[in-house]
């Protein structure tokens, strides 16, 4: 049986959905993009004359819910299927868009450079429990106007896995879409085999900015999947109660779904978000808080009740170093996400309220993801009944190390982590250098960087990517892109 977590139950899910729909129908949305607003009005949304807010009625919502796909697939740079969202699998992707990196060598938190990003792309390529890349942090050695598209460029040059990303401006989207189209060969091919998911954020409460609503529309029209990243901050920008925050997140996400489906019916979406509580003591948005994770899990339950594939920011920590807090918050998040059946979990590698990235943490989290994958495969009988023959063999042979039953089921039953998780006895551990978790993680990062092999994209494709990126950089005032090693 596959284990699963239920926090709400059907009754509460129904009530939350009903309240969210009521908010959209009565209070409505604050939309800061006239074109998006007009597009919605043309499809039956109404403007409240006294507040200028846009109300979405039941008919429009139901139409959008009906056209949103229940499943969709992602494909890697070579066109091979990697994800089938909505089929019940749980996939992991690194946390995205950090401002800083935690330097594995010095322990300093500092601005990321191109070289850091290249190392990251090489590491993520070698992690088998991490099914996609994400544009994990923003290199600071290119003009800021292109720093969001530049990380996508580097991910495409150095990795084959599909990518979870996002644009910071309306203009950046164009460059990013061009890069994806170059890899696929045509817009139609990209639509047929999506290579990236874009994160688009509503603003709490019930608001869509010019940039992010335009991103939703642009993605939908290009067939690029979107994940909606609603961020209620409980007790601050949303009700302090978990149920109240869920009502808000549901309303905001439904509104994103309507924008995307009106722009292009059938456009692929992930029901998701990055909710958090607000810690009034520090004025921060803790991703490692258990209540934050409860909102995430419950929100996944609501998405699944609608039959939609889901996304959540879980497996992150607010620690500033690769310490016990980092492990416990990420471990808790990854396990709860897996038990909730989140289709795409964004988080591994992330520290400091989504603002600091650590390659060493990524390889630790990767092993946590492997354990969580094992957990949700659950427990099932495998040649276990009747029990007597195996026990007769055990008593006769005095062990089962080489029994047929063991050989047949060992790999399915036991997922050996490593090399970061330490399971050596104390003496061997001492003999092998008394390496701490941090040291083992650093060593694993180095091993993965060294083992990296260049993606099998054609040289002509790589050259086209380079030309497109260089032209965007030139327009932003940079003559040549930073030097990269192979």
């Amino acid at each position, binding site marked *: 049986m596959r284990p699963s977590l239920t926090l709400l139950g059907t009754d509460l899910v129904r009530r939350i959905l009903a309240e969210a729909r009521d908010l959209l129908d009565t209070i409505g949305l604050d939309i800061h993009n006239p074109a998006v607003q007009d597009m919605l009005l043309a499809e039956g949304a109404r403007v409240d004359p006294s507040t200028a807010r846009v109300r979405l009625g039941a008919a429009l919502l139901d139409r959008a819910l009906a056209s949103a796909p229940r499943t969709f697939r992602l494909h890697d740079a070579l066109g091979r299927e990697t994800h089938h969202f909505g089929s019940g699998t749980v996939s992991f992707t690194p946390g995205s868009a950090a*401002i800083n990196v935690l330097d594995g060598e010095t322990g300093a938190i500092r601005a990321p450079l191109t070289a850091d990003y290249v190392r990251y792309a090489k590491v993520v390529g070698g992690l088998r429990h991490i099914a996609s890349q994400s544009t994990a942090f*923003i290199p*600071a050695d290119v003009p*800021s*106007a292109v*720093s*969001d598209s530049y990380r996508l460029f580097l991910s495409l040059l150095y990795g084959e896995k599909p990518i979870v990303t996002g644009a*910071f*401006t309306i203009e950046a989207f164009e460059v990013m879409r061009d890069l994806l189209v170059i890899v696929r060969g045509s817009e139609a091919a990209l639509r047929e085999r999506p290579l990236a998911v874009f994160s688009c954020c509503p*603003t709490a409460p019930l608001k869509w*900015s010019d*940039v*992010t609503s335009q991103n939703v529309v642009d993605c939908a029209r290009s067939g690029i999947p979107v994940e909606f990243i609603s961020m209620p*901050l409980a007790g*601050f*920008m949303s009700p302090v109660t978990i149920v109240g925050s869920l009502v808000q997140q549901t309303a905001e996400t439904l509104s994103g779904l309507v924008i995307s489906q009106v722009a292009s019916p059938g456009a692929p979406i992930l029901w998701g978000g990055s909710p958090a509580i607000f810690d*009034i*003591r*520090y*004025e921060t948005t803790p991703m490692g808080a258990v209540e934050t994770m409860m909102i995430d899990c419950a929100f996944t339950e609501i998405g699944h009740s609608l039959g939609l594939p889901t996304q959540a920011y879980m497996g992150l920590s607010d620690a500033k170093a690769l310490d016990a807090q980092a492990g416990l918050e990420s471990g808790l998040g990854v396990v709860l996400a897996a038990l909730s059946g989140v289709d795409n979990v964004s988080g591994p590698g992330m520290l400091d*309220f989504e*603002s600091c990235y650590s390659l060493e943490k990524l390889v630790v989290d990767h092993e946590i993801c492997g354990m969580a994958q094992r957990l949700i495969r659950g427990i099932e009988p495998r040649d276990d009944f009747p029990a007597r023959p195996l026990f007769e063999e055990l008593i006769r042979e005095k062990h089962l190390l080489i029994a047929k039953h063991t050989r047949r089921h060992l790999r399915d039953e036991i997922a050996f982590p490593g090399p970061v998780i330490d399971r050596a006895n104390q003496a061997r551990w001492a003999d092998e250098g008394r390496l701490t978790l941090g040291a083992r993680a650093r060593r694993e990062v180095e091993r993965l960087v060294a083992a990296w092999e260049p993606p099998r994209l054609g040289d002509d494709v790589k050259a086209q990517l380079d030309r497109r990126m260089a032209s965007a950089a030139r327009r932003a005032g940079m003559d040549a892109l930073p030097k990269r090693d192979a």
Partner: protein
Amino acid sequence: MSILSDIAASLQRGEDDEVASLVRQALDDGQDAVAILHGGLIAGMGVVGEQFREREIFLPDVLLAARAMYAGLALLKPLLAKDGVPTAGTVVIGSVRGDLHDIGKNLVGIMLAGAGFDVVDLGSDVAPERFVDAACDHGASVIGLSALLTTTMPVMKDVVELVRARGLQDRIKIIVGGAAVSDAWARQIGADAYGYDAASAVERVRALARTPA
């Protein structure tokens, strides 16, 4: 206990109705408005500010206290001479062009208002010229800039340079904040200060506003 210390105590508890009725009572008793202002409201707010700086109380406590203070101040204002209403100075604040994150900036603005500053909040996605124009129009001595995106940090530098280009650097000080920026960044772009949360923002803006022009 005197009625003034009652007002201060009630303000610290964030009881706005109670503060208003105590202020009314003090006025009925014939107390001087200026004395009520200083001995009650400002004294109470001073304690709250101190406790917040010492991290003994948190943001919502300060917001409640500020609301209580305004409840009392509303009754005193008509009785105070025009220049008797104290202000710590004027601050123009906003999130820089391209940046829509405004939660942190809003908190900083609310806390500055609570600390007695006149706050002109320009909102988010604000162009450099608007910051400088607004500072001139409102006679502000401090501009507060917020940025949470790597991509919008450079706009802060544009504001610093615009202030210099207009020769206003002695009159207008610039403080920066937000998840993307740091003390080092503030120094690098020539800003006058950096604040990492609402309490530090208030403390540093106070210091900047005190710097003689």
